[in-house]
Each structure stands twice: as C-alpha cells, then as structure tokens.
C-alpha cells in the first residue's frame, strides 16, 4: 500500500530520527506505553465487569464509573502521547502493516461501543444503577472486553510485523 509522503517526512523529521536513532528513547517510551495501556485496559475491564454484573455488585454502576474512569482517561492520554511518539519514529513503516491498521479499527469499535452505550443505555442508568444491570449494559461491557483484548493482541503483533 502506498504511504503518503507526509509520513515519510514525519519518520525522517528531527523528532522521528531522534527517537529511532537513540538506544534508550524508543524502549523508554514503549515502557511508558505499557504502563498506560495496563491502566487503560485494567480500569475499563473493572467497569465492564460491573456492567456485566460480575464484580462490585454491592456498589452502584455510577459509583464504580466515578472511581475508575478518571484513571482510564488519564492513562489514555498518556497512551496517546507515548503512542504518537513511537509512531513518529517509524510512521511510514507502521502505516504499511496490517496489524497496526486493524488495531485502530478495533479501537474505533471500542469507542463507538462507548458512545452508543452512553447515548442509549446510560440514559436509564437510575433504573439499573444498583443490582442487576440492563441487557444493553451487559452487551456494552462484553463488547468492550472483547474489543480491548483484540487491541492488545494486535498491538503486540505490531512489534513482530516491522
């Protein structure tokens, strides 16, 4: 697949060359990315398990969300920044491999699932906040777990595809 020249330029920009040319920068940013993804997926999984009615059943869904979602978003910001820095170092190379592109399809699906859940199911949260969740919440929780697991598998596959 042809990769636009912009990404070739990104890869050979001073920042791109700095990251790919250093012996410690890439592994350090990668390590930060691992911490960030662990907290993103871990905190999302806790909320998903509550939506499925499998964990924290004695706590309201809204209380679990309030406790964990700030961690999700903080860590997600860190994952985006570290991910972008990793991307800049090999931008054109990454865009040419399938696992990288499919990873973002599944992140998009995870985001879409979240948006649909908030626009539809979340509106009636008072009626299922305590105890057994609505079936829409269960479906959203399950889809989220599946999508994020696929994102992790594909993310790891990226490292083997360059």
């Amino acid at each position, binding site marked *: 697949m042809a990769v636009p020249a912009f990404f070739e330029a990104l890869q050979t920009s001073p920042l791109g060359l700095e990251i790919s040319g250093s012996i410690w920068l890439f592994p350090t940013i990668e390590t930060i990315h*691992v911490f960030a993804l662990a907290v993103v997926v871990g905190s999302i999984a806790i909320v998903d398990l509550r939506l499925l009615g499998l964990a924290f059943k004695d706590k309201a869904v809204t209380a679990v969300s309030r406790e964990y979602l700030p961690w999700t978003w903080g860590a997600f910001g860190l994952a985006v920044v570290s991910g972008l820095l990793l991307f800049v170092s090999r931008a054109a190379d990454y865009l040419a491999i399938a696992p990288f592109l499919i990873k973002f399809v599944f992140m998009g699906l995870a985001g879409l699932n979240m948006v649909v859940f908030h626009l539809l199911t979340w509106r009636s949260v008072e009626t299922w906040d305590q105890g057994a969740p609505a079936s829409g919440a269960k479906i959203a929780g399950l889809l989220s777990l599946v999508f994020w697991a696929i994102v992790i*598998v594909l993310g790891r596959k990226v490292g083997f595809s360059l």
Partner: protein
Amino acid sequence: MSGFLDWVGTTSLSQTLQNQFWMVPTIQAVHIMAITAVFTSALVLDMRLLGVMHKGQALQRLNTRFMPWIGWGVLVLLVTGVLLMIAEPTRAILNPYFQIKMAALVVVGAITWSLAKAVARSPDAWAEPERNPVAKPLAVASLILWAIIVTAGRWIAYGP
C-alpha cells in the same frame, strides 16, 4: 548453563513455539493481559493504602476483591513467561534485566503476601489503612517494585 539452554532450544516444545510464527506474539499478548490485571489490581490496593481511591472502604473487602486477580494473574505470567523462555532459551535467563525483574518480583510478592495475611488476621486494624503508619511506605514500595518489574520486563528485549 549455555549447554543446557542450547538443549532446551532443541526440544520439540521449543521447536513448535519457534516454528509457529503466531505463537510467541500470542503468548506475549496473554502475558500483557495478565500484566494489565495484576498491575491495575496492585495499583488500586496501593491507592487505597495511600487514601487516594475507595476512601472509606475497608481494606479487607478490597483485598478479597483484588487479591485473587493478583494471585491468578501472576500464575498466568509465570506460565506464559516460562513458555516464552522455552521458545527463546538464551534471551532471558542470563539477561540482567530479567534477573532484576525476578528479584523485584520476589520482594513485592513477599510484601503483598505478608500484608494480605496481616489484614486478614486483624481486619479492623486495617479498616482505615491510611491511619496505619506502615501503610504508605508499603504502598510506595509496592508501586516502585511493580514499576521495576514492568520496566525491566520490557527492557529484556533490549538487554545484552
């Protein structure tokens, strides 16, 4: 040692792991999912000890909830970790990052285990852990050790 490692590389399990191109990345992905479960669980418990998360919730209740994820998660990490070492016997054992990672794992394991035992023995004394003078130092030590484990783990790939 290197003779033994070379032999491990010739076993049929090692050969299978090497020849099926999807096996090593898949095992690594399972390893990362287990890191996610273990690291997040440890983070939540340490944040409770520091009085940042789940304020007002007794530590024993959170331990009951999260300790099984740490225990089973570490088991998955050990099994997938051993499989990865069998696939590439010379990659880890002699690597200083791997040795640092294992040393930190033993220490954090001992801290986590003894704290869980102490809390189970006298849950009332730990109901408000932020009032216990050893809670914060233990939480900080645990966070540093888990950070060393994750960092050293990622750096094994770049070690000598």
